[in-house]
């Protein structure tokens, strides 16, 4: 019982307080990939904690309880005590139901989500092949359209798509930098990372952590693609390309800049998409120092810690019982 309570307390605590920590973590933009790993570790550790809480409730009432203790040579009574459940079979049944629900829900949500995304990707890529034309020099599909856009479709047939308006708006260097950004998404399978976060969000939609993690992962894959692109291309070129595409991305012709920007008006009043793009530009124009080796190691350890916490919580009493059970007359 104690174990199950500890696990559920962890799930609730991390699920509600986690977003605050994630939101304040400014280091993520200096190490986007590490940020993604932490987000995913946090989100999935909460799912695992919920599942293991059910399992530990169930373990007491089953034969596994005594079997397990014999197996590890621990005192049955002591092991039973630590996993003990008032209410016996009923609570154990509920625990088993909880564990089963977490497992099946995860499997169903993952399968549904992945299938929907893959079908959508295949249909979109096929439609692009039919209405667009291949541009071998760019290794991309060109689609005739007045809105400037560049994007990629992952999935069975990974494709980079550029509209004719984007081709006209960007100079060759800018275009190459944008294509490098899109190829980084495909090469690093960013869609899988985004999907992992979104599946966790579908599993426990009421936990603020899940929403925050999904949002952060979506934001951080862009930063990571920027970093990958600017390893081989000029940062200012990529930043300029971003502004050009933002200006020409709408259907309406971009009005003169001066009419729109009131003097002294800062980043306030921007939409979320605008604010995110602004952060990317500022980050490219004024690159921060990379994280120190020590910080990186600590963060990696943190990610591993998050991932392992549910398992450690679940196993701690068994380990303790094992240790104590071997001490004679303890």
């Amino acid at each position: 019982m104690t174990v199950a309570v500890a696990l559920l307390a962890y799930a609730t605590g991390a699920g509600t307080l986690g977003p605050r920590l994630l939101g304040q973590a400014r280091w993520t933009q200096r190490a986007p990939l590490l940020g993604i790993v932490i987000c995913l570790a946090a989100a999935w550790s909460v799912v695992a904690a919920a599942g293991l809480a059910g399992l530990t409730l169930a373990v007491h009432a089953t034969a596994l309880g005594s079997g397990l203790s014999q197996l590890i040579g621990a005192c049955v009574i002591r092991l039973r005590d630590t996993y003990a459940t008032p209410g016996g079979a009923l609570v154990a049944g509920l625990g088993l139901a909880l564990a089963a629900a977490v497992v099946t829900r995860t499997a169903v949500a993952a399968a549904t989500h992945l299938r929907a995304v893959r079908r959508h990707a295949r249909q979109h890529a096929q439609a692009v092949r039919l209405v667009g034309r291949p541009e071998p020099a760019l290794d991309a599909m060109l689609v005739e359209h007045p809105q400037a856009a560049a994007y990629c479709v992952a999935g069975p047939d990974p494709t980079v798509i550029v509209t004719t308006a984007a081709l006209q708006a960007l100079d060759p260097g800018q275009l190459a930098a944008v294509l490098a950004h899109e190829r980084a998404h495909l090469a690093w399978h960013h869609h899988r990372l985004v999907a992992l976060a979104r599946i966790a969000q579908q599993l426990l939609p009421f936990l603020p952590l899940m929403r925050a993690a999904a949002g952060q992962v979506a934001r951080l894959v862009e930063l990571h693609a920027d970093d990958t692109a600017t390893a081989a291309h000029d940062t200012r070129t990529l930043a300029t390309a971003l502004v050009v595409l933002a200006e020409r991305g709408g259907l309406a012709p971009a009005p003169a800049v001066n009419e729109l920007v009131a003097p002294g008006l800062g980043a306030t009043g921007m939409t979320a998409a605008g604010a995110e793009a602004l952060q990317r530009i500022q980050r490219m124009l004024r690159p921060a120092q990379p994280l120190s080796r020590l910080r990186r190691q600590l963060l990696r350890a943190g990610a591993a810690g998050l991932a392992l916490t549910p398992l450690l919580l679940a196993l701690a009493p068994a380990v303790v019982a094992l240790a104590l059970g071997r001490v004679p007359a303890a």
Partner: protein
Amino acid sequence: MRQFGELEAVIMDRLWEWGRPALVREVVDDLSRDRSIAYTTVMTVMENLHRKGWLRRQRDGRAWRYEPTGSRSGYTAALMSEALATNPDRRTALAHFVLQMSPHDAALLREALEGTPPPSAQAPSAQAPSAEGEER
């Protein structure tokens, strides 16, 4: 599969260009001018396109006449409106370089770009945003 996809694109291209219902035989004859291609291959691909909703067909004697269900520009517009949709659920499979945004937002981005001189004109370390040293 990849070659089938390419053939689909070529066939749609011809039919859009012609702008009239066409027999499989006509498409085969046209394609045969620059490649050797079997009648059954073209027929299969056109039946696939019909099944997927890209072509509609009408009986003409013992054969079918096929024509695109929509114009190329119509399909392109639908495709792009899907690709540029702001609802993230409709484009989970797509990764955009930059999302669509208001002219106001774009103007602020331009201002940020123009307002930041190239690195050579500033002391980079002194200009680094102060927040970046913060712990999480």
